[in-house]
């Protein structure tokens, strides 16, 4: 993991996800003003920024959920800006929303098996249970009867078996106890080792630094900076200024 962060990426390789001049609106309100970033296959990249900077909106736009959007989002070479969320998902994008989206009327097992397969090479249920032993124990429980940490793990787990190659994770550590945050960090590093490409929205940059290769800083609907994880220490003051901490 650290070696990946240290190795400079081949700049000529075609990125797995390439977002350029992405504009987005919630109804009348213009929230994204030209987001530019790209993610190479196998990378873990974070979007850092203050509350309301446009991080979640960026993920929603990539997923096709944001009401109105323009610009370009290319996933594995396919332009998705005009596609429906279900078509984007079918290309191999897995989405874990900020509010987790665990279904109350479904059991843990049903939540886990709900997302249909969108590609080859997803994790098996056994492997998922290995990563998240709690989910195996509680597979018959109602989805929302799980603790917050377990719900977060379920929300991540269910997009691992679909064969999606790009995972969009929106603040997976929000509101969780430090020990659970650590566990989720381990999981993300494990997923990177399995070859998943991950875009992570985070407020907690210490957590972000522990899992990511590169960080994009989002402010007022724009990407204002990119900091490789290896250069994080050198840029810590700048980052503090961006994040207002």
């Amino acid at each position: 993991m650290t070696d990946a962060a240290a190795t400079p990426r081949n700049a000529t390789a075609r990125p797995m996800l390439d977002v350029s001049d992405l504009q987005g609106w919630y109804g009348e309100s213009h929230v994204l003003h030209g987001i530019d970033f790209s993610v190479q296959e196998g990378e873990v990249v974070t979007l850092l920024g203050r509350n309301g900077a446009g991080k979640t909106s960026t993920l929603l736009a990539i997923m096709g959920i944001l009401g109105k959007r323009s610009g370009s989002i290319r996933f594995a070479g396919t332009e998705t800006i005009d596609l429906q969320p279900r078509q984007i998902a079918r290309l191999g994008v897995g989405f874990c929303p900020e509010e987790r989206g665990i279904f109350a009327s479904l059991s843990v097992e049903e939540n886990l098996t709900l997302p249909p397969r969108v590609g080859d090479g997803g994790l098996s249920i056994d492997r998922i249970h290995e990563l998240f032993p709690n989910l195996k124990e509680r597979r018959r429980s109602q989805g929302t009867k799980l603790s917050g940490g377990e719900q977060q793990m379920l929300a991540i787990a269910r997009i691992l078996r679909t064969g999606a190659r790009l995972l969009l994770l929106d603040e997976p550590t929000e509101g969780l106890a430090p020990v659970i945050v650590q566990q989720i960090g381990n999981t993300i590093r494990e997923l990177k080792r399995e070859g998943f490409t991950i875009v992570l929205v985070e407020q907690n940059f210490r957590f972000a630094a522990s899992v990511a290769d590169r960080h994009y800083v989002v402010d007022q609907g724009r990407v204002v900076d990119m900091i490789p994880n290896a250069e994080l220490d050198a840029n810590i003051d700048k980052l503090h200024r961006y994040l207002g901490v």
Partner: protein
Amino acid sequence: MFELLGIPPQVLMGQLLLGLINGSFYAVLSLGLAVIFGMLNIINFSHGAQYMMGAFVAWMLLEYLGIGYWWALLLAPLVVGATGIVLEKLMLSRLYRLDHLYGLLLTFGIALIIQGLFRNYYGISGLPYQIPDALSGGQNLGFMFLPNYRGWVIVASVIVCFSTWFVIEKTPLGSYLRAATENPTLVGAFGINVPRMITLTYAFGVALAGFAGVLAAPIYSVNPNMGADLIIVVFAVVVIGGMGSIMGAIVTGFGLGIVEGLTRVFYPAGSAVVIFVIMAIVLMIKPEGLFGRSA
């Protein structure tokens, strides 16, 4: 022979049976309404008209094509379901972002148009539909005579209701439906075609109404107003059971049919209003309905 509070058992059992039969129709119709409301958030006021269409399609199949009851039981729901697909695609799908009231008004208007069309062509005197040969006659149970067809209506309704419940609550297909009821956006973001699911759910809900219509055809005369009379009671049943609850719709449907039957025995004058009285009481005590989840 036993007597209960001076009521002859034949009378009691007869009314109980009648109650169960009415309850069968309440259950199948309110189940369809609950399925539709759960998924589409639309109160399908044209349900009664679609029930009537089921009966008419059965009658037409026999009259014009010589196709009998058993095939009608399969074909009429399919025909009614197909009209549901057209209705959903052309009109209902434009209303999902709006208040419940718009769906109710649209489907109410559609009900009036459908009923008006059938009244125009077939009048209101009612058309006869024979009980199929296999189900004519009846059983002497000792304490009462059970017409075979009425027994069949109860059995068929129970089977359809519990199959529907099973599919929705216990199968992967049902888990898609439940999930899409909760959060259609996220289900779509997993790659599932939610609009198509919504269309098929509506088609299935109205097909249930069509099925009930075929069941009703040999018992009640086939006439354009048969649904309008029934649907008001069915809406009261749905309110009592709780909008959107599958098991609630089934249990309340059968239960209220029986309550209505018993009222006819013990206080005949009250039988026409007992369901509405119960509805008023439920609304006062538990406004979300007996099986409803509070919002």
